């Protein structure tokens, strides 16, 4: 009985056909689609309740042909990027500022932790009261959602900068700015990247949520609108686009960025800072 019978990725001598995994994955997807398509007549509900894959494909083509999907996609992405950038810039700068002053970080930490405990979505109602429905509220919500994890993790990152190194560099005559650039920022970088990754994830979910509640365009709005206008296939198109967007963002931007900093700075402090 060989231990290779247990599917642990060991450095086993067995080298299966490299396409096998991809093929099996594709089969998995196909199975799901076929099962879905076949179940439609079995379930017997109309496409309002239970659209078939064919309905979804048709809706997708329709949305593109009518120019709706590109515009919604662009709107969502613009909002997302705007909120992400603003929140990240605010979070990082404040995080560094606060992190540099021990007393201030001690004082603000409990308040920050409590505000973070008030989940981001819970701020949407009061934002709506203050700013109404629409673009301002959405972007503000996004900024807030990104700001907190970035701030918190930046703060943690800055505080882990080894005092020894700071002293060493200072004793060599470094100015405050140089200390910042040479010691503190590199030390804080993994924390910053973690914060950005968490913030990006929260912001994406927050975007969809905010768009469902307060928007007139966008992928989140598409998901909502589809159910309101008896076009549930469009809702599913929206959900699929959302999934693809997130996968794309994670694969092509977030993970490579994270890996780049890990490879360069060699450490990745994780889950402690995630919640």
């Amino acid at each position, binding site marked *: 009985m060989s231990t290779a019978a247990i599917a642990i990725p060991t450095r086993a001598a067995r080298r299966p056909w490299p396409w096998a995994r991809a093929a099996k994955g594709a089969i998995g997807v196909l199975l799901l689609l076929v099962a879905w398509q076949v179940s439609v007549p079995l379930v017997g509900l109309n496409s309002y309740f239970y659209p078939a894959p064919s309905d979804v494909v048709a809706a997708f083509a329709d949305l593109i042909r009518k120019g709706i999907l590109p515009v919604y996609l662009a709107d969502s992405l613009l909002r997302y990027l705007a909120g992400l950038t603003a929140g990240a810039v605010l979070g990082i700068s404040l995080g560094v500022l606060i992190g540099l002053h021990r007393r201030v970080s*001690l*004082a603000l930490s409990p308040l920050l932790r409590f505000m973070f405990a008030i989940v*981001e979505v819970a701020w949407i*109602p009061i934002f709506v009261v203050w700013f109404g429905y629409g673009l301002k509220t959405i972007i503000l919500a996004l900024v807030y959602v990104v700001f907190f994890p970035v701030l918190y993790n930046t703060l943690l990152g800055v505080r882990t900068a080894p005092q020894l190194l700071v002293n060493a560099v200072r004793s060599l005559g470094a100015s405050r700015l140089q200390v910042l650039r040479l010691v503190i920022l590199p030390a804080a970088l993994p924390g910053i990247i973690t914060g950005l990754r968490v913030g990006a994830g929260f912001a994406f979910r927050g975007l969809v949520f905010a768009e469902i509640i307060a928007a007139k365009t966008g992928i989140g709005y598409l*998901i909502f609108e589809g159910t309101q206008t008896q076009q549930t296939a469009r809702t599913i198109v929206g959900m699929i686009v959302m999934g*693809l967007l997130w996968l794309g963002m994670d694969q092509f931007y977030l993970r490579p960025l994270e890996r780049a900093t890990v490879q360069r700075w060699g450490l990745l402090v994780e889950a402690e800072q995630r919640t």
Partner: protein
Amino acid sequence: MTQSRAAEGYVLGTVPFLLLVAGWAVLPHVLQYPQYMLPPIGVVLDFARESIADGSLLLNVLASLARLAIGFVIGMALAVPLGLAIALNRHIADLFRPVLSFLQAIAGIAWVPLTIIWFGIGNGSVIFVIANTIFFASLYNTVVGVQSIPVPLYRAVRSHGGRGFALLTNLILPGALVQILLGIRTSMAYGWRALVASEMIAGTSGLGYMTMEAVQWQRTEVIILGMIIIGLLWVIMDRTIFTPIERRTVGRWGLLQR
């Protein structure tokens, strides 16, 4: 941290809260703004007293927590067996992984409009979203948990003749349990957000619903109280349930694979 530093932390930590409350109390006297934007503390406290007295606050809190619990149970009940299957059988893993990765990328909240069509507004939709969120989080943790069991342990158990069911109960489940328990904290964090968010859109009771509903009536004091309770509840849950779980599992089994 030395005693004096810890104490300093506590004392300093209260300062921002005090400043915030003071600012809140003073603001109406300094600026002119309509009351619905930021009701005075007194109004919020009055509402708090009212809703505690007539039990409505407690009802909402319990409703929310109940949904969280049910969603959690359903999510875990589906995730753990599937996670075990995926981690133990390469074929199942390869078959399901792309599909599940994709489904995971569709955040729970995006399901809400669809669930409203299927289950209508109310418990069904909210619980579905929570279960969905917790399912994917726990699935990932279960798989990682099984995969982090050191291979020598497998060989050890097998060399003692253990296999099949015995292998499952004596090695795999306890081994994966660490990671599963550790993952509960993060999956609950996501689940809690999913709860509040879905109650806001598709709920008929509960904290999220209460907070969102108040927007229509411009009863901002309800919103503020709702937000505070949401924050407090999470802090309490985290302190009393999840963090101790995390600490106990680390303490007992000693390994911390995050």
